[in-house]
């Protein structure tokens, strides 16, 4: 077995280091094993610290989704105070989260995924020359980077800086947003909208969001083939990428962008219908992890993280999270299907969870977020409070904060005792999607998605890069 297996890595254009081991079955991938090869140990490093120190430390878990990490920590800490969030702070936090997520959705396409179409393995395709615009360093690429930077620049007036801001406190925001700042922010958002509208959708954003089925999608791609998204969809359909990297796991979303208790994107668990989500059903299994701990899977609220770098049978520093003992996948695709967005539901009905579905869900989500971001900005009331004063003391007890980061569901679970952090567990989006096997041998979502890929003399074709990147893995975040 070990003579015929293929080991791949590191991968560029994903966040962090990743190794993949493939075992062949005839001329296909029979089994895949994904390895998160790096461990830092933030969870144990947080133990013993003052509760509010988490606001400094937690964002440093991940420089890609630091706002999401901050908001998850903030929310978990707020659960141990009597502080309420002013409406302004709620809007600004949602806006900050939407900016970070939107920037990630955009970066994923232009920086990480689309350059795949210029791999040498595709050079015989008749679309190869057209797809040159997706290569690294082209004008569309540079414009996308500039658009990303303009968007993230909005976090300067909102959060001081990005990444790693300390502006998100249990009681609200550390600053106010004045009317003139708001005017400037609206301008910047307008600039980003203009970029997306022109380069990505060619004026067809609303038409795209309103599509109802895959036939309409194919027509849209034809009509908008001069746009980056139109071209990508056309290529994808020609290649059959809707059938690439298919998985059948349930989908999970915690629900995103809450205002007065109501989410913009509803949460839940998708098992051919939406079921209510109950965080008590989450466990983490250490069977394949270079970690020491009890054999029985534990709730993250009871979780432990102790290094055992040479543990027999393990192949990743990641834990294997499960929901009701099942493998589930998370991310924009899960969010949009669970929320019931019509195109996402139609794609799920016709295609299921494959590469093209996961890629398109990001654009559906981005298209839905843009008008919402404008609304949150317009709803900021400069004369109303952004922070509710009160006792900043974090009480002893257990709490958690659940957030939807760009890549999916992020949870921080903490315990405070005697005014110190005694337990801090982080369950990141990539922890779900790039989970290793659990003690019953169930492979994680990405491991499942790779099975069946064709092998040529034991080597995978260029599609493997698309399957991996369609999940947008963030390995730093996964293991932390």
């Amino acid at each position, binding site marked *: 077995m070990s003579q015929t297996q293929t080991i791949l890595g*590191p991968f560029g254009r994903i966040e962090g280091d990743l190794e993949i081991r493939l075992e062949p079955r005839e001329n296909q991938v029979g089994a895949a094993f994904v390895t998160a090869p790096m461990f*830092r140990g933030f969870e144990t490093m947080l133990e013993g610290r003052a509760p509010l120190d988490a606001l400094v430390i937690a964002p440093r878990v991940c*420089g890609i989704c*630091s706002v999401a990490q901050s908001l998850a920590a903030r929310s978990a800490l707020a659960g141990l105070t009597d502080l309420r969030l002013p409406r302004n702070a709620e809007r600004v936090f949602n806006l900050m989260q939407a900016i970070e997520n939107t920037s990630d959705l955009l970066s994923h396409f232009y920086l990480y995924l689309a350059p795949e179409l210029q791999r040498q393995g595709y050079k015989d395709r008749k679309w190869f020359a057209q797809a040159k615009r997706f290569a*690294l*360093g082209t004008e569309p690429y540079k414009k996308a980077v500039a658009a990303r930077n303009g968007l993230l620049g909005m976090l300067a007036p909102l959060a001081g800086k990005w*990444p790693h801001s300390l502006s998100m406190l249990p009681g609200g925001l*550390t600053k106010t947003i004045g009317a003139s700042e708001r005017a400037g922010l609206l301008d910047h958002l307008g600039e980003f909208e203009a970029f997306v509208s022109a380069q990505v959708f060619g004026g067809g954003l609303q038409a795209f969001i309103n599509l109802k089925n895959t036939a309409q999608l194919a027509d849209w791609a034809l009509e908008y083939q001069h746009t980056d998204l139109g071209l990508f969809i056309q290529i994808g359909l020609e290649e059959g990428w809707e059938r690439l990297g298919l998985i059948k796991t349930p989908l999970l979303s915690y629900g995103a962008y809450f205002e007065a208790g109501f989410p913009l994107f509803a949460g839940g668990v998708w098992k051919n219908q939406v079921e209510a989500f109950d965080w008590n059903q989450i466990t983490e299994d250490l069977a394949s992890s270079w970690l020491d701990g009890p054999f029985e899977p534990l709730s993250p609220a009871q979780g432990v993280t102790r290094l055992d*770098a040479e543990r027999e049978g393990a192949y990743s520093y990641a834990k294997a999270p499960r929901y009701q003992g099942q493998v589930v996948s998370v991310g924009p695709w899960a969010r949009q299907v669970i929320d019931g967005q019509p195109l996402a539901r139609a794609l799920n009905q016709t295609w299921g969870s494959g590469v093209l579905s996961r890629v398109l869900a990001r654009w559906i989500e981005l298209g839905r977020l843009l008008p919402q971001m404008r609304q949150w900005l317009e709803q900021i009331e400069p004369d109303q409070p952004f922070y509710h004063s009160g006792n900043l003391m974090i009480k002893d007890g257990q709490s958690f904060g659940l957030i939807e980061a760009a890549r999916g569901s992020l949870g921080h679970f903490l315990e405070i005792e005697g005014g110190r952090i005694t337990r801090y567990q982080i369950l990141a989006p990539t922890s779900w999607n790039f989970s290793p096997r659990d003690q019953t041998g169930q492979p994680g979502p990405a491991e499942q998605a790779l099975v069946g890929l064709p092998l040529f003399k034991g080597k995978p074709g260029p599609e493997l890069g698309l399957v991996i990147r369609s999940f947008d893995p963030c390995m730093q975040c996964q293991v932390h």
Partner: protein
Amino acid sequence: MANLLWLQSGGCGGCSQALLLQPRLLERLETLGINLLWHPVLAPKEEDSFWPLIDQILEGSVALDMLCIEGSALLASGGLVHRLSGRNGHMAGLLRQLSGLAQEVLAIGSCTAFGGMSALGANPAGAVGLQYDNGRLGGFLGGDFRTQSGRPVINIAGCAIHPGWLADSLSLLSQGNLVLDEWARPAFYTEGLVHHGCPRNEFYEYKASAPEPNDLGCLMENFGCKATQARGDCNIRLWPGGGSCLRGGFSCINCTAPGFQNPGHPFLETPKVAGLPSTLPTDMPKAWFVALSALAKAATPERVRVNATSPKILVPPNKRAESKK
């Protein structure tokens, strides 16, 4: 052309994300004649090209002019806490091999320079800076380490780095006039204090402190702000989009300094010694500070006193405060 190789180890990837924020980054690299051999985000060739490239560098057939490392060396369990991908072995071993071959080694971010956030508290991964273990010279490569060009590791400290700190360092390096400070950080951004250019300076002058975290007053007395000690040009250069920590309303945590991650007190609290903040400027006699503070407090204009305790300006200049709120 100068070949640049960028590898990541014990870090969060945030410095790469910050680097991307540099306007016209690709153009700057082109102007400087920098050829990105590999960067995890910007310039990866196909997956299977990584190891052939590394082998060529190790054999000497590809020159390694600049080695940028983002993240601490991780040494726990004999280095296995950061295994290599695609091959057996550990990242620390590869970093040591490559460092010996590079003309210049740049430590990107405080994790890489000093250990930083990856070396927090009990430091289970054994994170250490390339040439410093927090403030102690030595670290992963040793205090005597010199690159092929005869230089120590260049420490682009910060958590995360300001993209301009790196971009300008590359420019100065190519001109041959990059000056380093006593921690081997580029002096152009550490020769001043974060305090310089802080929009709250007037509140500081009068010791008009913010009682709540989103009030306008100075954050030094109550919220652990270290800007009067911390070195950096954050409030002059400003973060992309025009911000800074202080402009965002929160305290400086001194992220360019070795050991900043373990301040010995909660980040958002100011430890007091005999009633005096421990965050006083370090180059001023304490007695003078006390005397000046007493005078300044007595002389505080009402405008400053009132605004310090409010999230927004209540009293503009040249208008007497009638009452607070």
